[in-house]
């Protein structure tokens, strides 16, 4: 759906300071119909890259190529694109309905269709009860929901979201994740940034990991898991002695010991424990989380 090609961006805080690289030759591709999580710690360069994609700031080098199916020029491409910035900002003197109406009109959604879309998305994001209130009276979570609704009014083919789940309570996060899943099921391409790995792991197929302005990983989440960490086993035993074959071990309050063992040493460890008179009360496959892998890659 779009491709980032060797994007680099440097910033200079003031005239005398040295320029620092916010992005360093970042390249990746987001394919049609994919839901891609854009991961990175605070200050990794996620928002800078999203601003470059949206044309708010210019890159020093590289380019952003949108799929021709989205349109030939920026006007056509943006007609098919829904964007939610990090901490969306609104005109506080407008009501929620006026704001959505204004945003819809900018996307050439008018009349009965606009009214229908406003009501539909306001209901989905549970802000329908507050639509006629001034935006200045909205809570942070409500603003996030209103911003999300405004990004979907024109039924975009691609949705780009900058930290869409920040500022939401657990219920709100779940609701928004459900909306993202449902949009993905409808065939929309979704690219969203987050610094919370578990959110991305829960709803995304693919991930782009940025660290210090450099691309750390790009690809499917299952690939990253297979590529970077060998899955280990968790073995629970009543055996109290020390065993060299265990990767790590931890004593539980009930006297049992949980040992982490690599697949190669699993059989040997079980045999050794049994030989020493111990018994095995549990053996489970330890699937690493994306969060653990991302931390491992960083380190």
């Amino acid at each position, binding site marked *: 759906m779009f491709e980032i090609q060797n994007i680099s961006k440097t910033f200079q805080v003031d005239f005398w300071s040295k320029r620092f690289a916010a992005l360093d030759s970042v390249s990746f591709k987001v394919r049609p119909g994919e839901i891609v999580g854009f991961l990175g710690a605070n200050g990794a360069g996620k928002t800078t890259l999203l601003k470059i994609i949206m044309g*708010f700031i210019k890159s020093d080098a590289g380019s952003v190529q949108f799929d021709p199916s989205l349109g030939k020029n*920026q006007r056509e491409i943006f007609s098919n694109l829904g964007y939610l910035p990090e901490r969306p900002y609104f005109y506080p003197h407008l009501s929620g309905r006026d704001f959505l109406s204004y945003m819809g009109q900018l996307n050439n959604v008018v009349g009965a269709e606009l009214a229908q879309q406003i009501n539909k998305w306001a209901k989905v994001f549970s802000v329908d009860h507050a639509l006629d209130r001034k935006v200045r009276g909205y809570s942070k979570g409500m603003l996030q929901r209103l911003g999300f609704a405004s990004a979907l009014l024109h039924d975009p083919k691609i949705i780009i979201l900058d930290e869409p789940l920040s500022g939401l309570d657990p219920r709100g996060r779940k609701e928004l994740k459900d909306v993202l899943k449902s949009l993905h099921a409808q065939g929309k391409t979704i690219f969203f940034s987050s610094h919370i790995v578990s959110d991305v792991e829960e709803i995304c197929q693919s991930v782009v990991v940025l660290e210090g302005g450099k691309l750390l990983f790009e690809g499917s989440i299952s690939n990253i898991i297979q590529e970077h960490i060998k899955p280990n086993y968790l073995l629970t035993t009543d055996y109290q002695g020390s065993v060299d074959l265990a990767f790590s071990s931890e004593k539980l309050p009930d006297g049992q010991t949980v040992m982490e063992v690599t697949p190669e040493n699993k059989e040997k460890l079980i045999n050794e424990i049994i030989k020493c008179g111990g018994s095995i009360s549990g053996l489970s496959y330890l699937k690493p989380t994306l969060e653990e892998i991302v931390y491992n890659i960083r380190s």
Partner: protein
Amino acid sequence: MELYKSRILFNVLILGFILSLITYIASEFTYGTPERVAIDFGLGLTNLSILGISIFMGVTLISQEIESRTVYMILSRPVSRFSFLLGRILGMSGIFLINIAILGCLSCFYYILLGGTFSSLLVWTLFFMFLEAGIMLVVVILLSLISNTIITVIFSITIYVGSHAIAPALGTSFVKMRPGIGSLLNTYAFIFPDFSKLNIKNFVIYQQALDSKLLISSLGYGFFYFSLLVIIASYIFKHKNLD
């Protein structure tokens, strides 16, 4: 929207009331020419109010949208930066128009009520005020795109005062005797707006005639300068990093 936000109608009504009050006082205390005092004061107040709006609201018109990042919500839609800028300028021009319509009509009403005769120059004067405010607005926007709020306000007021003072200064014997200063002032008038071309208030007050060719050339100058500034401002805005 801008009109609603600024609550400009409320301000205009207050100014209208002040205008009515002072015109009444002036007519009571002025001997012989109350209508001149009324129109002089009315046009002055109208000019001052739209100038104030153009400088003090213009300085935040685009920069606040960038700082508060509402600009992201708009420019992420099929809206070009030029359209956005032009929309903001036209919105503010609407405010000028309402301001001029209310205060200008009130001034003309008191002028005629106190014995003045209606002249088409009155309409020209009001229109030139509108054009001057438009030019000042784009000057302010342009400066705000490359500078901060305080510097923009200071520079804008300086440009406004300088642009009004340039023609009278060129006419003084002091400047005439010093060709160096004269060419310097002419250079200033070439680069910065020459508002004396759009200031025909005195012709209205003293009921003097004005050649239509001069009016047309002033109008052309005003439009040309306004358009040129809009093009420069939109070029800067198009290439500005909105971070």
